[in-house]
């Protein structure tokens, strides 16, 4: 049965939660003008890796990446899987820690941080535990049905105070590609590489067409652009650069007379909490699959609480935002490794596999 809608909703959902926080600032920091160039560059990079990844996976119908890799060569498989596992664990910890910080800043300043972190772990844990992957895929559709409307509403209203003059110059005077040399650009790739690995972890019954994923990407492109351009267009590049979460601040300044709520960003944030919880649940699922298929087959009843507990302890060891930010930076090499090596590896293996089957067919 085709699950195009569910898979692409999952794909969009996992990315949406990551875009609005750190991504705008990273892009703004990576260049002084024409921010669309780094955005598009990142986006193209994203398209490239998922098309390689999908092409590679398409050679193995209905198998997940762990099975594919482990069937060939154990050592080589772990060269790919171990960094992936480490990376996934790392982003769960960072996502939970960073999001708890945001929540505490925005609306629960009196609630201790560990309560928020626990919340951000237990709810995704429940999603994964109760629903398994089928439930997660269906959940993505339900969540997007409920929460896309507020997000779109906020995105539309955030155009309220913009000044189109800040859009120019469209092409920078000199050094259009200097952003490639700056670390913030590579940091910004986080928003592109967070969820793509999932496509290799789907069960055999979730067939989807690559077209559905590319359509999902196309939906995401305006979101990337808006999240960067709204702060720039509203505040100007120089001011936007000084803020920690430029997009959230701009949304906070919107005023709508007919709405009974004073702060519009609460809609955005709440929807993003839902998406982030979903993202964490999906990442948890990937870790679960790697451990169960690759290391030891423990029942999820025990494995999920163990993973959650470890993550929670790891989160507690991050004392402040500075450390979290530092961890984001240290994460860059690993992220680049996972997002470049995994697709290439899968593609090569798929290609070899296809050639082998073809030879086998010819010989027989």
């Amino acid at each position, binding site marked *: 049965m085709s699950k195009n809608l569910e898979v692409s909703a999952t794909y969009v959902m996992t990315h949406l939660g990551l875009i609005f926080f750190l991504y705008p600032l990273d892009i703004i920091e990576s260049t002084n003008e024409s921010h669309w160039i780094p955005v598009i560059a990142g986006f193209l990079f994203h398209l490239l890796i998922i098309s390689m990844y999908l092409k590679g996976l398409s050679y193995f119908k209905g198998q997940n990446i762990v099975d594919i890799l482990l069937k060939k060569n154990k050592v080589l498989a772990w060269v790919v899987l171990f960094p992936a596992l480490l990376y996934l664990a790392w982003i769960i910890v960072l996502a939970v820690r960073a999001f708890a910080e945001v929540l505490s800043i925005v609306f629960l300043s009196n609630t201790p941080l560990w309560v928020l972190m626990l919340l951000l772990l237990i709810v995704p844990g429940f999603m994964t535990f109760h629903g398994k992957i089928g439930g997660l895929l269906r*959940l993505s559709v339900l969540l997007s049905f409920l929460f896309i409307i507020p997000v779109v509403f906020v995105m539309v209203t955030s155009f309220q105070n913009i000044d189109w003059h800040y859009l120019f110059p469209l092409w920078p005077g000199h050094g259009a590609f200097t952003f490639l040399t700056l670390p913030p650009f590579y940091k910004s790739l986080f928003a592109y590489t967070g969820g793509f690995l999932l496509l290799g972890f789907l069960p055999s019954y979730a067939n989807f067409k690559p077209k559905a994923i590319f359509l999902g990407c196309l939906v995401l492109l305006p979101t990337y652009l808006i999240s960067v351009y709204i702060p720039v267009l509203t505040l100007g590049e120089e001011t936007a650069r000084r803020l920690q979460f430029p997009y959230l601040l701009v949304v906070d300044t919107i005023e709508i007379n007919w709405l009974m709520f004073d702060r519009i960003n609460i809609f955005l944030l709440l929807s993003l909490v*839902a998406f982030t919880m979903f993202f964490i649940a999906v990442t948890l699922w990937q870790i679960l699959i790697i451990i169960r298929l690759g290391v030891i087959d423990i029942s999820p009843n025990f494995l999920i609480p163990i993973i959650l507990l470890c993550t929670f302890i790891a989160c507690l060891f991050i004392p402040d935002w500075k450390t979290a930010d530092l961890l984001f930076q240290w994460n860059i090499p690993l992220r680049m490794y996972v997002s470049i090596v995994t697709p290439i590896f899968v593609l090569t293996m798929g290609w070899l596999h296809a050639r082998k089957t073809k030879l086998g067919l010819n010989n027989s």
Partner: protein
Amino acid sequence: MAAMDEVRTHFSSYPDYVNQQVQIATETFTITGLKSLINFPQTIYMVRDSLLTASINKLELVEVFAGLGQTVPAETTGLISEILDGMLIAMHNASGICVSIYPVPQPNSRPISMPIMENNVGGGNSAFNENLEANIILLRSHLNTSDLQMKNYVMGNLVKSNVVVCYMESLIDKQMLGNLTHKLESKQSTDISNIKELSSVLEFSNFSLVTHYMTYELPQNAAKALKDGKAVLFQERLPFAIVLPSLISDLFVTEDDTNHPPIYTWLLRSLRLIGLLTTLIVPGLYVALVSVNPDVLRFELAHSIARSRLDVPYPAIVEALLLLIIMELIMEAIIRLPSSIGPTVTMVGGIVLGQAVVDAKLVSNLLIIIVAAATIANAAVVGFRNSYALRLLKYLLLFLAAFLGVLGLLTGLVIICAYVAGIRTLGVPYLQLIKPKGE
């Protein structure tokens, strides 16, 4: 003959047991049955008439007699069970041949009438009742097709009851049907007299918050479910069709909608969706906005809410719980009250919830509106089994909102979504719209 005597001793204390001899020409027949289940005068007339005609026409009496019904072995337990099923047992005394005859039955249920739990505006009004045959007649009259299959299962060892499973051969998901029949067949010795026992046969979790089946009184709803590829179960003495599996669309969609122009169909369905969200969110939102996140609201609004709660001496969660529980009590009390006393409760409830409680400064004005909105919205979803789930789940959101404010509210919603997304009935996920399909 011996078997017949044993049957007679078995039933000797039954006040409704009839054992009668009928003499046709030279032959004697014994006729027995329970007069509470059989209309005896008419049935005996029916039997005698055909035998008399046969004897006048000089036909072989015993052969005509055997042709009146189904020949059964003259064996005590078999005969007793036939009699209890409401059949007429007749025996030719000379040869000892026993025949089980389908009699004129005593009416044992109300006639086909209006639905009690399920009102509709645009469609037919004949509802299922307690009689299995009448229900099948109604269903067949809505679905006149050879594709409609029916399987009867006699469940129970001590007390026997019939469960009829109906489905459309070409439309139903084969795996689900396999699951269903396997479960019924493997537990055929379980007594079933209520839905809980049926649920345990079908292995539904006792802790499930969302219903796994829908019950419909109107045959057109059952027919629609069959056309969508669901299975319909009739259990003897239950005045509704049990539709398996239930899907999330059952909260919003009824067959009655399709009797309106399409625009109104969709408007009505969206209204129910709004009702669902309102009843879940509104009480929690009140608590969140009043006690945790008043800064989210516009200043004027926050101010007026705060003013209305000025004299209320306890936190918003206690206030909300107090009134919501009174509301639940009223709803529960009204079900069992005789219709002559019912209005009193409504009136008293109206006064208490309406004015007095506000005047006494026990709760704020706004909360009355909130509770009323939540209760009304709760009734907007289709099917009372679904409204139970919403009644309960709104408390989850209420408590989470009291802890974490609007974030708690959202968390509650996400938990509910995750819960709903993970539910499966007979291997079919709950979160689907029209046709139930396995994963």
